[in-house]
């Protein structure tokens, strides 16, 4: 008897779907508070930073009004940055955590990363929806983006960028454990130096030039620029970001193709 072969695309989608549901199940049920914590964390972060902002203003007695809505600025930056950081850390552990599943022939290591990226997108979407509802309920200024389409495209671009970096890090981490520890420190430093808390316009030119080497700064400026009235994307170098997107993906895929079999059978 000959068993009918399934189409490769169909196999791929089944695998991604199965892995996606499994990851989501684990994320939500990890500990009793898994689901609450997933959604509470971003709000706490944003709340703390808005509070600090208010304190500083009161302390310095500054009466100057911002040209943009600060809470929206913080929320959009944090959500985007968190997604990048989550994709990075989750891809890093993807091969190790799913080792056992490679005994199913159709599960390829890269599928586990793709599934985890989709899980992060899904969770981020939920967080965004909650933020938007809050924005509506509290009637926060500028809670709807200035240019929805371009914000959306910037986020998609950020996801592709994160995937490329994530793939590279995942491969590196699988063969050299210390890469993971290094990334842990880096992602914390990046949070401070990625223009999440402040628009680039507000800092001196010298500092701007240095920070602009960081591709995440470009993404933050892009998202903030398209989201908020009173800000723009004039400091963003799109070609530079494009390099940062394409090169890691190509190197990542090239390494992956070379090393896939070793990852499966290790």
């Amino acid at each position, binding site marked *: 008897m000959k068993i009918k072969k399934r189409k490769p695309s169909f196999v791929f989608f*089944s695998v991604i779907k199965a892995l996606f549901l499994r990851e989501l199940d684990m994320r939500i049920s990890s500990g009793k508070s898994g689901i609450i914590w997933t959604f509470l964390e971003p709000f706490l972060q944003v709340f703390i930073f808005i509070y600090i902002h208010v304190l500083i203003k009161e302390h310095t007695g500054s009466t100057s009004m911002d040209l943009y809505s600060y809470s929206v600025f913080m929320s959009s930056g944090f959500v985007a940055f968190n997604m990048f950081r989550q994709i990075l850390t989750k891809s890093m552990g993807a091969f190790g955590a799913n080792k056992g599943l490679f005994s199913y022939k159709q599960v390829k290591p890269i599928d586990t990363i793709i599934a985890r990226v989709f899980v992060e997108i899904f969770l981020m979407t939920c967080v965004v929806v909650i933020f938007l509802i809050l924005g509506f309920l509290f009637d926060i200024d500028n809670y709807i983006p200035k240019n929805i389409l371009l914000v959306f495209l910037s986020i998609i671009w950020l996801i592709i960028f994160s995937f490329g970096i994530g793939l590279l890090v995942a491969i590196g981490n699988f063969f050299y454990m210390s890469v993971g520890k290094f990334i842990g420190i880096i992602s914390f430093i990046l949070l401070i130096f990625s223009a999440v808390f402040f628009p680039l316009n507000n800092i001196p030119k010298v500092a701007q030039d240095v920070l602009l080497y960081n591709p995440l700064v470009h993404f933050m400026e892009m998202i903030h620029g398209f989201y908020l009235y009173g800000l723009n994307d004039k400091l963003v170098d799109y070609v530079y970001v494009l390099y940062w997107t394409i090169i890691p993906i190509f190197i990542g895929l090239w390494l992956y193709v070379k090393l896939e079999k070793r990852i499966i059978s290790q």
Partner: protein
Amino acid sequence: MIHLTNVTKYFHTKHGLKYILKDITIDIPDGNIGILGRNGAGKSTLMRMLGGIEFPNKGTITSDHSFSWPLGLGGGFVGNMTGKANVKFVCNLYGKTKQETQDIIIAVKEFSELGDYFDMPIKTYSSGMRGRLGFGLSLAFDFDYMIIDETLSVGDAKFKKKAKEALKKKIETCNIILVSHDMQTLKEMCDTGLLVYNGKLQFFKDINEGIKVYNEINR
């Protein structure tokens, strides 16, 4: 037919390379194949290579057949998910519809005799229970080849008998590749034999002949 072309497989050990297969070219005809060899000779590695989840260092292994995942003692399960969730996961993996998945869940629950444990996380299972779940699950799917690593020795005497009977019924519609140290089981289940020995691979049309040679080596 499974084609092996110039297949070389080795592992790195402290004392240099250890060869499992050394430049092997062979065509293995269809049938129920029993894999023989001493401990550490590379039986399981060969089995995994035939199933396409481990790869030769050189050469290629090709076949148009579909292979199951290797049935062993509970590999491929996720510890903190329930037995039921794991069954669902595998059904999703193989693109089963909702109705098919429901049927498979019921069938597996009944066959594996896990009772309430079916809705408990796998990490609470004993190795025998994992084996039972894995075996029950694999029976629900159709493959050209089932790859089995000593699963038949799972569970108590009653379950062993049941498993053997279920497998015999399954063999009517598909082939198996079986790794076992139990010569009686091999004789009962397999027609042809493959002997892994010192980096060589020998095919026997009759499993009894293979067992004879294997016993001579073992002496």
